[in-house]
């Protein structure tokens, strides 16, 4: 684990992460973001290198669990109000470009 810490994030890794993030970067942006992200990850090495084997993770500062309300219907936004914000809506639905390519 520690060995992977010592490696700097590469331009190829940043390109991979950009693809996962649905972002397109230019060659210049890839180089610049790679060096900036490496600086942040270098700083994070103090956390990454600690021995915290016995420590439980904290995902949330409050001890609240299973917050549920009664299953009673109440007023909601209308379909019209919600679709009014959409870039494109057709027949009461959100509309998007084709999801699957045309069959060959």
């Amino acid at each position, binding site marked *: *684990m520690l060995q*992977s*810490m010592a490696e700097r*994030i590469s331009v190829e*890794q*940043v390109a991979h*992460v*950009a693809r*996962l*993030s*649905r*972002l*397109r*970067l230019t060659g210049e*942006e890839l180089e610049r*973001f790679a060096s*900036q*992200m490496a*600086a*942040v*990850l270098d*700083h*994070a*090495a*103090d*956390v*990454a290198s*600690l021995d*915290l084997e016995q*420590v*439980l*993770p*904290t*995902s*949330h*500062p*409050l001890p*609240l669990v299973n*917050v549920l*309300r009664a299953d009673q219907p109440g007023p909601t*936004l209308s379909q019209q*109000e*919600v679709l*009014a*914000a*959409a*870039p*494109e809506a057709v027949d009461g639905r*959100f509309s*998007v*470009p*084709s*999801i699957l*390519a045309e069959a060959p």
Partner: protein
Amino acid sequence: MTTAADIAGSVRSGQCSAVDVATAHLDRIDQLDRSLHCFLSVDRSGALGEAELVDRAVAAGRDPGPLAGVPVALKDNLCTRGTPTTCASRILDGWVPPYDATVVELLRRAGAVVVGKTNMDEFAMGSSTEHSAFGPTCNPHDPSRVPGGSSGGSAAAVASGMAALALGSDTGGSIRQPAALCGVVGLKPTYGMVSRYGLVAFASSLDQIGPFATSVADAALMLEVIAGHDPRDSTSIPSSPAAVLARLSDGVQGVRVGVVDELVEGASAEVVSAVSSAAEALAKAGASVESTRIPACRLGLSAYYLLAPAEASSNLARYDGVRYGLRVDGPDVEAMNVATRTAGFGDEVKRRIMLGTFALSSGYYDAYYGQAQKARTVVLDAFAAAYERFDLLLGATAPTTAFPLGDRTADPMSMYLSDVFTIPSNLAGHPAVSVPWTTGGDGLPVAVQLLGPALAEPLVLRAASVVEASAPGVPPPCGDFLPSDGTRSALPRQAVGSGSDGLPREGPA
């Protein structure tokens, strides 16, 4: 400077009209905001309409509420029904929310008048308000310098008298740091104390809404209005919040205060000196004050810059060009998603989304995200141990006074270091307040920070009151940002130290 409490008192008693108060503040925005750029939108007719309702309530003998006629500014990541909410991002440019955030409903119910939505770092990611897609905000004490961030517009609007109160959001210091740099009071309440319903999410386990004010009492007044359980926010604390205002002048006799080395070290000399003076003031008021160490605080910055981007990468996945906001067309849906996000997000948001995606990705999850979550436990445990010995902790809010615009934008790590003293409270979910202490040699505000355990707002603000009363104080901005057409006399001109060299500056285009 007129306080919010004074305004509400005068309006409720019929001594002055809410419409007049709103008009005066809207005129001031017209006059000053060309230079400072605190606001992304100003709703003049909406504000005057709300003010008129307040005046009608007073005339009819009904109580318009504790914030009657008080002009408030809202950070532009708080949803306002019918008026744009942009998060200072192109990706939400033109979006009009169909609902109000809970805090906005509560403010209106209390008689407050919303004058406008304030500038911020895009999606609250930044410490200088320079990452706004619509141009930076200037610090009213020196327009060549940043107001801090991410809630820089709210801080500068209150500091320059364009609003009596403002709301911001604080994920890693985004209320307290700009409050410090602009010379106003800024409070981050306990996580869960204020509903996040209608706050556009950045890092959901860290985000918290809180007030900006020109006095501790005004911050307490606003907190009492916005605090409380909200069934629409599942992380909202179910119990009723304790009264704050009623206990505000109870003093700090016998209160144990720890001055935390790690929350001062590395700060500039004038910041260090302010913390020492505030510690002396608390001791003089009867608190027992001693120096202490919480080494785990040093882990805060690293853990935060893994956890917050990780949560952000997940929260910001919703901006896909389908349901709201910007869409940039493409031949298929994925190409449309990519084109939309690439055009809609600025560099800092892209960096954080990618950092977070990396920290969560297969092969790195345990080493980065998992490890940072464990470091968060270490910080929480260290605070818990400290609060066995102390009731409150004292430190600096920001390591330096306001830095020049453009100074840190090329080096994200140097920008992130602005939050080194504020982040630990977000990780712990604890309340903390920044209180102006004085102006430094360069004429810029210097502040101190008081921290307490969860739900300790009453004690934190009592101590803040003591600090405020003992502080030399920060005079209002000298007004060098005003256009040189004779309107300058509208602001009281006060000497703010020999080094003040605020240059007149053209407003952003």
